[in-house]
């Protein structure tokens, strides 16, 4: 589904990302972990054509993302709060995204109904603008918005950060459910090793822009990751 070839990104002389080859098959739930500055967000931004690669390319379902815009209809994402429109209410935002993705109000409402638990009564019908919601609630709205319009690829940067424990657990269930259907490729990045190992079939560890581990998730994975991060980079580990 997503093929990355000879991808590098340099700022000045500093290489921030260097991925020789990375293949993410359709329907995989893919986890990206790494410390701050490892290149996770850079990779996602390249995937969304928000920054230009220095060399190489990413091909998303036969579309080269930095030359064609045809990947947009089947790809959706939530990177950070800058993906929200602060002066809209959550409902208006969902309908707006829905319209961009060819869904009418009824379609969007039907989808939102599945997330009532996840919203925990704090998103819909609040008569508040998105900018006035708490960080966690903003995140909830953004994540759900990325599910609108039957995307085949969903990219979520740090979806667990800022969420309360209950919501984290619910989000994990949602992601697992998505990947169980084997039709949607979910890309998730996180600092929380436990969450990623729980929801992702495959975990790639980035360190200073380079892929240093590529693991099929198993019972051993969490320990393996923990020992990697504890051993290699104690000095960099704190946020």
């Amino acid at each position, binding site marked *: 589904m997503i093929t990355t070839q000879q991808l590098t990104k340099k700022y000045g002389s500093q290489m921030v990302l260097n991925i020789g080859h990375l293949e993410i098959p359709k329907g995989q739930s893919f986890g990206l972990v790494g410390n701050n500055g490892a290149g996770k967000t850079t990779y996602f931004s390249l995937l969304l054509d*928000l920054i230009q690669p220095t060399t190489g390319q990413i091909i998303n379902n036969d579309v080269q993302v930095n030359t064609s815009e045809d990947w947009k209809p089947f790809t959706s994402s939530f990177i950070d709060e800058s993906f929200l429109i602060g002066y*809209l209410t959550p409902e208006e935002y969902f309908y707006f*995204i829905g319209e961009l993705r060819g869904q009418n109000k009824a379609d969007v409402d039907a989808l939102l109904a599945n997330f009532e638990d996840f919203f925990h009564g704090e998103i819909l019908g609040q*008569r508040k603008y998105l*900018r*006035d919601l708490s960080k966690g609630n903003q995140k909830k709205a953004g994540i759900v918005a990325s599910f609108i319009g039957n995307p085949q690829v969903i990219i979520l940067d740090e979806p667990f950060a800022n969420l309360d424990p209950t919501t984290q657990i619910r989000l994990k269930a949602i992601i697992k459910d998505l990947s169980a259907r084997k039709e949607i490729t979910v890309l998730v990045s996180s600092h929380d090793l436990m969450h990623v190992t729980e929801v992702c079939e495959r975990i790639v560890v980035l360190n200073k822009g380079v892929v240093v581990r590529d693991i099929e998730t198993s019972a051993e994975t969490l320990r393996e990751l923990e020992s990697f991060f504890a051993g290699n980079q104690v000095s960099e580990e704190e946020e």
Partner: protein
Amino acid sequence: MFKHFVSLQWKSFFRSSNFGKSLALKLLMGFLGVYMMVTFAGLGVGLFFILKKAFPDSDPMLIVCGYLLYWVLIELFFRYFMQKLPVMDIKPLLLYPIKKSKIAHYILVKSGLSGYNFLSLFIAVPFSIVLITQGYPVSNVLGWLVAIVCIVLTINYTNFIINKSDKVFLFLGVLILALYSLEYFSVFPVKEYAGQLFYSLYQNPILALLPFVLAIGTYYVNYNFLRKKLYLDASLKKKAIKVETSDLTWTKRFGSIAPFLQLDLKLIWRNKRTKMQVFISLAMILYGLFFYSMDTYGDTSTIYLFVGIFMTGIFLSNFGQFIPAWDSEYYGMMMSQNIPLRKYLESKAGLISVSIVVMFLLSIPYVYFGWKALAINFACALYNLGVNVPVILFFGSFNKKRIDLTKSAVGNMQGTSATQFLVLLPLMVVPSVLYFVLKTFVSFEVALITLSVMGIVGFVFRKTLLDKVTEAYRKRKYTMLAGFKEQNN
């Protein structure tokens, strides 16, 4: 402790993003500032002589005093939506071992030194100096000046008290209108009585104590209020207003650009700065009166063309020059969502076009000054529609400065760069020069027809032009994205 606060203030000023702006912009802003000051001071100096000449029989001081009540009310009215107590700045201070009373004093004193307070003093001080040189008794004039300073401070602190309710604002508006009508229909001579009141401040300098006590009093009301409310959930919290969502389904008529049109309308209506642009634009329809009411220009002067372009294109330039920076907060989302850039721009073009038509319709009463005024405005509207819309959108592709929509509307230069000044050249200067040349060497009619035809041609080819503009946006996408991400520019 106050020393620390002052140094904080100093740093926040000199390290502010505004200050780091390009030299040209700084110079321009500095120039504008000096210009304002000089104008006000000039008015202060000239006021005495102007009044003396206009009303040789009465004392200029008495006339000025007559208007002071209106000044107080109008200043309160304007400050109501222009000036807010800068409480958010002190949020970080709450955690440190600083007494709350000190923090409260700090913001209140700081607000006393705000620029708004100096504005009227730029008139009052020169006026007083002139009075003294004209032989008015020094002690009386000084007493009066002190009283004025205290009144300014009272206005300053009263504003923070009444700022909490919308009703007061409405009341102020009604009061000003009511007083003025009483005056106008000679029911009650407001000016005379109010004038006496303020004039007594001059006659009897001891009375200056009264405004002084008022200033101190309002200060303490504020202080007590603030001191008690220095908690995150009280006065420091930003107000979250209950949203009234409006149904904008009528935009569906515009087909595929409807979602963007809805978004733009909400953008304009729900953010202070953009909303202000609408009001400014509507008010600017009166701009032409300055020129049309003077006979010095003749009826086909180039100044009228400039005025026409300006009036019909005010929203075009005010709103358009910051496209797409209005959307900078979420530009990343716009660029990764399933959005055809073309549709996005079409919606903006549509919105601006509507504004031009509306402004033209509003300008029709200028026909009072002759059919030529109407003809000029019509040609200008056409030119704006056909030529200036694509031009401003094209220049928009050079915008890369972020605009925070939540920031205040007044004096907000966020998003301003050299582009904003460059764009004025093709927008207003080019048609004016063109008109001037054609009118001088051929004829008035030919000049207008040329501009109109240019507008119509541009309108006919708007699809092609918009394609070119879209291409420009595509090329600059990454630069814009990077620029809009920078929080403090």
